[in-house]
């Protein structure tokens, strides 16, 4: 069952609400404009969804500060597209509070919502074959941090040493959906 919503923030909020409401499911997967309810009784899930009050308030979760070395190869490109200086790109990126809307692509890779629409930029036409682990990047409406090295076409702003994924931990993803994220210049 796939529930459609209007925004990633609303998706994270609905997933939270479903967990609090005690929905029995194999998996509840928030995403950009949907929440997937996998392994549910459709009748019961539908009845529950009809009682959702709506809104995009996520459960109060921790806020994570991520120290970043702003030395990414795409900083000059972003500055050109935003028509500002590189320093102003860093100032803008560190002024925002992002919300982890959902994870995907790789374990612990969080799609962070909160970039103003005027600052959205397309991903690189020619993706890099290897983006190093810890790269902090933006693309479209999203900001993200690569937990492991992988190919990627997002615009690289900098790097962080923070560990994003630990499968041995009870909470393996640092940026689980709903987490508030701020970037600070290291």
């Amino acid at each position, binding site marked *: 069952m*796939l529930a459609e919503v209007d925004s990633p923030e609303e998706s994270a909020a609905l997933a939270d609400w479903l967990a609090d409401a005690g929905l029995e499911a194999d998996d509840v*997967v928030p995403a950009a404009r949907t929440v997937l309810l996998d392994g549910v009784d459709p009748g019961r899930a539908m009845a529950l969804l009809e009682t959702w009050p709506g809104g995009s308030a996520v459960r109060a979760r921790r806020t994570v500060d991520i120290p970043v070395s702003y030395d990414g190869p795409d900083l000059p490109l972003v500055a050109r597209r935003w028509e500002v200086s590189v320093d102003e790109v860093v100032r803008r990126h560190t002024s925002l509070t992002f919300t982890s809307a959902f994870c995907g692509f790789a*374990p612990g890779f969080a799609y962070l919502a909160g970039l103003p629409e005027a600052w959205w930029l397309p991903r690189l036409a020619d993706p890099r074959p290897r983006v190093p682990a810890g790269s902090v990047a933006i693309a479209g409406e999203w900001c993200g941090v690569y937990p492991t090295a992988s190919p990627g076409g997002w615009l690289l702003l900098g790097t962080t040493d923070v560990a994003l994924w630990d499968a041995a931990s009870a909470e393996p993803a640092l940026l689980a959906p709903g987490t508030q994220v701020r970037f600070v210049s290291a």
Partner: protein
Amino acid sequence: MIGAGALTTVQDLGRPGWAHLGVPRAGALDAPAAALANRLVGNPPESALLETVLGGLTVRNAGPGRWAALTGGGAGPAFWWAAGAELRVPEPTYGVRTYLAVAGGIAVAPVLGSRSTDTLAWVGPPRVVDGTTLPLGEPAAEPRALDVPAVRRPGGLRVLPGPRADWFASLDPLVTGVWTVRPDSDRIGLRLDGPPLERVREGELPSEGMVLGAVQVPPNGQPIVFLADHPTTGGYPVIAVVRPDDLWQCAQARPGERVRFLRASRG
């Protein structure tokens, strides 16, 4: 492991419940064959076993004798695997994947509640390679008789319309087409070749959650049936979803084989 073959992994029932963090569920691709192997040697259904591709796996029993069973392409009764004996898994007579269950189950440390190896992100125990030693648990029960026919009859893959079926004019081209299994099919997906499925809607689909058995259609129009190690979210429309009880056939479809889809009645 004397010889690990083309691809050998430890699998169990998988790790559902972590998709929201981007972790694939993994688990034995041919679930009924894995369940049968465990049953034959007296293991509970959640026991871990080995999944291997196209034979070639050679294993020595480094401990005391145990009951063991091979299922997959075919299935035989449980056999006694003597201490020190070498077991060579033959190439299956049909199908792709063979399961080797040993009484007591493979007792590697679970990761996020499962002993399955996911080959997309490599969550779980490492891939089995030459020289790997795997611990076994304590046998729980006596072996059981082969209680189902050893030969299973494949049919078409029964599908229900997917969440983005309306991105296509109809399901007809999918269910009337004859699809050829591509050699790059793997635990992530059964990749198919056939007459390209054409969209009636342009544009990008924002990433959304994907289910096991989703038939995803990338821009080239060649469908992919998502199997156990599929990415948890995806940005291509899902035209249909294969019924869970038919997915074992995807695990056993050989490259070059032809498969068909059938419209399933709901429920």
